[in-house]
């Protein structure tokens, strides 16, 4: 299958600063991918280039089989909801109206339902909305557009937990009914973990992890208990980090554990806890790429 998004050696240089550094990855059509990374890691720049808003300094970007730069056919099938969106002096109603004009698959029904759920005031100027309300508007536009490629950059800044849950529910329901390629950047990793089929972690412009979330479950385990037992258990295993408090210790072991390992841990009175996606990402984003690369699953 041709990838919906294909990026190779993508680099963006701002006066000597590499915002995106030789990024290479493919996204399958009809998938939900999380783009994760710290502030300033290059997530927004990467998405702006995918949307054709920014130009690459070097490398290759294809969206739906063609370069997105000024390609009417590709752009018509793409929407980019960004956290820092500058809106015209529009009322909420006008912003929705404008968006509905440009997307042939726009769902008035969905937009109406979500406006009610988020309590969006249709008659208020977008510029007068609170941060959370503006995010909600972006979400409504992003989902109701039903665009083949949907890019969400930090879509829920300032949204309360109830509204975020609404977003997750709507996103999944929409995706089930009208599958599309969704790339979502977020800091709330564990919250979004259930949605994501794949994660791409970017750090200082470089892709440091690109894996299916299923493969990442159990990719690393936290082992804790008596320090001697931890040391015994972790000997000959790749260990990411060890912490010790008095006679207790905890270590993160990379690789999956089998039944024998688990039985042995039980004998040694060790607690085993799989690392959450968030912990894995924190690890990936905080380490030099070579440490994580043995764990990397190729696309």
């Amino acid at each position, binding site marked *: 299958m041709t990838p919906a998004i294909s990026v190779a050696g993508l680099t963006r240089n701002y006066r000597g600063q590499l915002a995106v550094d030789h990024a290479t990855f493919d996204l399958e059509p009809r998938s939900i991918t999380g783009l994760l990374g710290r502030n300033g890691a290059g997530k927004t720049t990467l998405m702006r280039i995918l949307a054709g808003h920014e*130009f690459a300094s070097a490398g290759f970007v294809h969206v739906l089989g063609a370069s997105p730069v000024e*390609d009417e056919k590709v752009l018509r099938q793409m929407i*980019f909801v960004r956290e820092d969106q500058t809106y015209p*002096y529009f009322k909420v109603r006008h912003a929705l109206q*404008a968006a509905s004009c*440009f997307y042939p698959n726009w769902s008035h029904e969905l937009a109406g339902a979500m406006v009610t759920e988020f309590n969006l005031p249709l008659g208020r100027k977008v510029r007068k909305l609170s941060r959370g309300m503006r995010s909600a508007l972006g979400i409504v536009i992003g989902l109701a*557009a039903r665009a083949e490629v949907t890019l969400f950059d930090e879509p829920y800044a300032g949204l309360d937990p109830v509204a975020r849950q609404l977003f997750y529910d709507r996103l999944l329901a929409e995706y089930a009914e009208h599958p599309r390629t969704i790339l979502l950047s977020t800091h709330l990793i564990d919250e979004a973990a259930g949605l994501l089929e794949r994660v791409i972690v970017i750090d200082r412009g470089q892709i440091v992890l690109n894996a299916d979330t299923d493969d990442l479950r159990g990719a690393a385990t936290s082992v804790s208990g008596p320090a001697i037992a931890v040391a015994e258990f972790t000997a000959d295993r790749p260990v990411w980090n060890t912490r010790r408090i008095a006679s207790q210790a905890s270590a993160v072991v990379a690789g999956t554990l089998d039944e024998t390992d688990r039985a042995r841990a039980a004998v040694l009175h060790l607690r085993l806890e799989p690392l959450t996606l968030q912990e894995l990402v924190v690890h990936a984003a905080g380490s030099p790429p070579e440490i994580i690369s043995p764990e990397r699953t190729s696309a």
Partner: protein
Amino acid sequence: MSTWIKVARYQLTDRYIFVVSPWLILALDFLINLVIVASLPVGQHQVYVGALSAIYIVLLTSGALAIARQLPFALALGVSRRSFYAGSALLCVAIAAVYGLGLTVLQLIERGTGGWGLRMHFFRVQYLLAGPWYLTWLTSFVGLILMLAWGMWFGIVYRRWSLAGLLSFIAAQILVLAVVLAGIGVTHAWHGVGHFFTTLTIEGLTGLLAVAAVALLAGGYGTVRRLAV
């Protein structure tokens, strides 16, 4: 093409930019002048006010706002820079044609009523808008496009290089003007220039303005193509 029309409609969503501001300001401007002229001592002389320039200046800012305010969201909705610019330019041409016609009609009324009963020349401007109605329309049309296109270019420069770019752009225009004036001085060409402008017909001037408008539209297009948001 249909995207261009959609962009034009998108541009009209905020009615203040293209519809309300120009006519509201022109109406206020007209009323103020009317009151002033009415309060002048009654005489036999014609009163020239020259306040029609307001609508041209407002449309310059309209062009700038149409880009500066409206462009980022349109791009987020998957509109290409090229379509956004083409659609906006198309709207500007249509607006210039319709508003030019509006100004022509108002000029005819002004003529018919003897300058609103006050011998006021508001919509009649000596030399520029003093010919037959179709020439008034043509000159207004070209003049309005010129201002809108110029404004759009300002808006694009602002979006692309923000305030520093905008100031440099203005400075560059002043510099070009200064160089041209200095060039005329150095080559002792003032006499020829003066002769050229005193013998220039309004048709000729309209043609020159049209060339300038096309140049400004081309300049805007050249600048918008590499604009990043």
